[in-house]
C-alpha cells in the first residue's frame, strides 16, 4: 500500500507519494539552507517554489494524479541542484548587502488571528504557528500569563503585514512561505493544523463579537445614565423641580441658585453657577460621548478634545474649591449667645405668634441641605428670614426664657458679633409671650450657619397655653416635658412634677 500525502506548494495543493515527498522535502530543505543566508533569500525561495508548482502543474493530469519520485527527480534536474542554484553566489556576496540580513522578529499581521504574534514567532523559529498558538493558550490557562506575554509582544513587536500588492487574491511573501512550514513539520500536520487554526479563528471571532455586544450595552447604559442625570440636574437647578427624579429626593434636594445666593457673595454666584455647571456637567457630557462611541464603535481623533475638556474640568474644580474655601472661611468658627429673659409669674401663660411668615412679603422659600429650618428670602430688601426653634423645659426657679443665637464666622469674635446681630423680637406682657415666627439677618448679610433656639422654662403648677399656629416653631417631634409637637397647640397644659398635663 502506498501512502500519499497532501502538500501545499505556493498555494497549490498536490498529492504526492511518500518517497517522492521525502525527496522533495530534502531538496527544498537543501535549497532553503543554501539560499536563506543570501540577501533576498526568502524571496528566491518563494519564486523557486512557485516555479516548482508550475512545473508540477504542467502535467496534464496533475489534479488527479499522485506525484511520483520520478517526477520529483525530473523537476530537480530541470531546476538544478541546490549547488547549481546557489552557484558561486554564496562565495561572492555583494558588497554592503549583508547589513540587515539578520532574521528579525516581528508580528506577521498578514497571517494573524489576533495580532500576528504567533505567526511572527512561527516565521522566526520555523515552528508551525499552530503549536505556538497552543502554547500561548495553555499558558493563558496558567494565571493568564500567556495572554499577558501575548499582549506585551503585541505592543513591543513591530508589525509587518502583507505587502501592498496588485490585485486582491495576491499571495503575500508570508503566505507563500507557509507551505514550506507544512512540508517541514511532516505528515498530516497541515490538515490538523489548519483545522485548529480555523477553530482559533472561530473562537476569536466569537469573543470579538461578544466583547463588542457587551461594550455596546455598557455604552447604552452610559448614555441613559448621562442623559437622565444631566436632565435632572438641569431641571433641579433651573426649575426647582426634580421632574425625572422620584419625589423621594424632593425634600433633600435644594435649589442651587438659592443655595448660592444664601451662602455666597451675590457677585460670585454667577461664577459659582457656571463652575458648578461645568464640574457636574462635563463628566456627564463625557459619559454620554463615550457611551455613543461605545455603541457605534467608531474611531475619532478626539485626544485634543478630551484633554481640553479634562483640563477645563480640573480648572473648574480647582476654581470652585478656591471660591468655596474662601467663602467657607466664614463657617470656620461658630459661637452662640444666650439672652436670658424673665417672665412674670402668673397662673396662666399664653404663648402666641407675633410677626408671621404668612404676612411677610418674601419672594422665595428655601431649603438648605441638612438644615431642617425654613428660610425665606426678601429679594427687594435683601433680607433673609429664618424660623427659630421652640422647646419647653421644666424649672424649679421662676419662669423665664432663653433666646440662644448661633452663628458661624471666620473667627470666634466674628461668630459672636454675627450671632448678636441676629434680629428677633420677643414681647413679654403680664401673662403672655409673643414670639416672632422668624428671626432676620441684617440686610445684605449672607447666611452663615445662623440659627436660633427659644427655650421656655416653666415651674410646677403653672398653666401654659400654646396658640395653634405655634407649631411652626416646633421643629423637633419632641417638644419637651412629656409632650409632642403635634399635640401641643391649642391646649392648656399644667406643669406637674416636670411633666405637662392636659387640663381639659
Amino acid at each position: 500500500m502506498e501512502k500519499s500525502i497532501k502538500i501545499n506548494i505556493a498555494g497549490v495543493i498536490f498529492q504526492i507519494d511518500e518517497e517522492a515527498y521525502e525527496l522533495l522535502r530534502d531538496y527544498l530543505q537543501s535549497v532553503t539552507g543554501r539560499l536563506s543566508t543570501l540577501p533576498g533569500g526568502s524571496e528566491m525561495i518563494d519564486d523557486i517554489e512557485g516555479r516548482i508548482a508550475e512545473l508540477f502543474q504542467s502535467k496534464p493530469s496533475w489534479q488527479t494524479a499522485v506525484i511520483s519520485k520520478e517526477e520529483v527527480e525530473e523537476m530537480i534536474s530541470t531546476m538544478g541542484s541546490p549547488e547549481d542554484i546557489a552557484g558561486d553566489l554564496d562565495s561572492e556576496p555583494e558588497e554592503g548587502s549583508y547589513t540587515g540580513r539578520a532574521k528579525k522578529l516581528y508580528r506577521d499581521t498578514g497571517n494573524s488571528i489576533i495580532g500576528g504574534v504567533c505567526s511572527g514567532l512561527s516565521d522566526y523559529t520555523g515552528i508551525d504557528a499552530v503549536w505556538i498558538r497552543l502554547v500561548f493558550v495553555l499558558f493563558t490557562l496558567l494565571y493568564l500569563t500567556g495572554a499577558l506575554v501575548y499582549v506585551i509582544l503585541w505592543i513591543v513587536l513591530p508589525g509587518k503585514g502583507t505587502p501592498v500588492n496588485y490585485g486582491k487574491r495576491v499571495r503575500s511573501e508570508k503566505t507563500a512561505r507557509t507551505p514550506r512550514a507544512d512540508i517541514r513539520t511532516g505528515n498530516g500536520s497541515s490538515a490538523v493544523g489548519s483545522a485548529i487554526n480555523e477553530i482559533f479563528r472561530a473562537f476569536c471571532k466569537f469573543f470579538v463579537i461578544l466583547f463588542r455586544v457587551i461594550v455596546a450595552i455598557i455604552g447604552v447604559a452610559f448614555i441613559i445614565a448621562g442623559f437622565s442625570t444631566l436632565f435632572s440636574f438641569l431641571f433641579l437647578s433651573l426649575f426647582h423641580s426634580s421632574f425625572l427624579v422620584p419625589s423621594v429626593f424632593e425634600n433633600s434636594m435644594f435649589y442651587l441658585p438659592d443655595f448660592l445666593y444664601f451662602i455666597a457673595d451675590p457677585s460670585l454666584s454667577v461664577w459659582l453657577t457656571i463652575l458648578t455647571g461645568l464640574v457636574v456637567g462635563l463628566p456627564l457630557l463625557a459619559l454620554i460621548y463615550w457611551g455613543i462611541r461605545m455603541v457605534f464603535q467608531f474611531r475619532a481623533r478626539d485626544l485634543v478634545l478630551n484633554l481640553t475638556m479634562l483640563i477645563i474640568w480640573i480648572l473648574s474644580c480647582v476654581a470652585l474649591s478656591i471660591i468655596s474655601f474662601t467663602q467657607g472661611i466664614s463657617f470656620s468658627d461658630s459661637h452662640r449667645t444666650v439672652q436670658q429673659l424673665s417672665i412674670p409669674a402668673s397662673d396662666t401663660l399664653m404663648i402666641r405668634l407675633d410677626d408671621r411668615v404668612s404676612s411677610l412679603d418674601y419672594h422665595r422659600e428655601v431649603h438648605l441641605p441638612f438644615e431642617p429650618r425654613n428660610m425665606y428670602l426678601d429679594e427687594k430688601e435683601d433680607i433673609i428670614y429664618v424660623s427659630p426653634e421652640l422647646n419647653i423645659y421644666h424649672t424649679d426657679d421662676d419662669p423665664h426664657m432663653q433666646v440662644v443665637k448661633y452663628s458661624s464666622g471666620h473667627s470666634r469674635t466674628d461668630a459672636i458679633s454675627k450671632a448678636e446681630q441676629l434680629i428677633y423680637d420677643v414681647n413679654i406682657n403680664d401673662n403672655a409671650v409673643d414670639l416672632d415666627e422668624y428671626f432676620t439677618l441684617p440686610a445684605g448679610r449672607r447666611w452663615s450657619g445662623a440659627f436660633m433656639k427659644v427655650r421656655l422654662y416653666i415651674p410646677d403648677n403653672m398653666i401654659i397655653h400654646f396658640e395653634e399656629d405655634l407649631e411652626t416653631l416646633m421643629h423637633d417631634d419632641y417638644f419637651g416635658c412629656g409632650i409632642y409637637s403635634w399635640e401641643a397647640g391649642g391646649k392648656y397644659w399644667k406643669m406637674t412634677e416636670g411633666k405637662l398635663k392636659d387640663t381639659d
Partner: protein
Amino acid sequence: MNVENNKAQMRKGILEYCILLVISGNSCYASDIINKLKEARVIVVEGTLYPLLTRQKNAGLLSYRWEESSQGPPRKYYELTDKGREYLSELDKSWDELVESVKLIRKK
C-alpha cells in the same frame, strides 16, 4: 582545465546580460524568461535564474509588480528600471566590443 567547465563559465558570464535583454523587450514573468533563455540555450538548469533575478532586483536594475493569473497564484512581472536600462546599454556596448574583438582575432 576541462571544456565543460569553460563553457559553463562563458554561459554564466553572459547570462545576466541575456536576462536583462529578455526583460528589456517586454515585461515578463519568470517562466517567460526561462522559456526564452532555454530557447536560446544559454541556461541549463532553471534554478540558476532566481538568484540572478533577485540580485539584479536588489541592485536596482529590475522592479516587479504582481499580476493575477488565470491559472494558479499571482505572478511577478519583471521590468527594467531606468538604472537597468543604462546598465544594459553599457553591457550592449561591451558585448559588441567583445564580438568585434573575437571576430578580429578569428580572421587572423
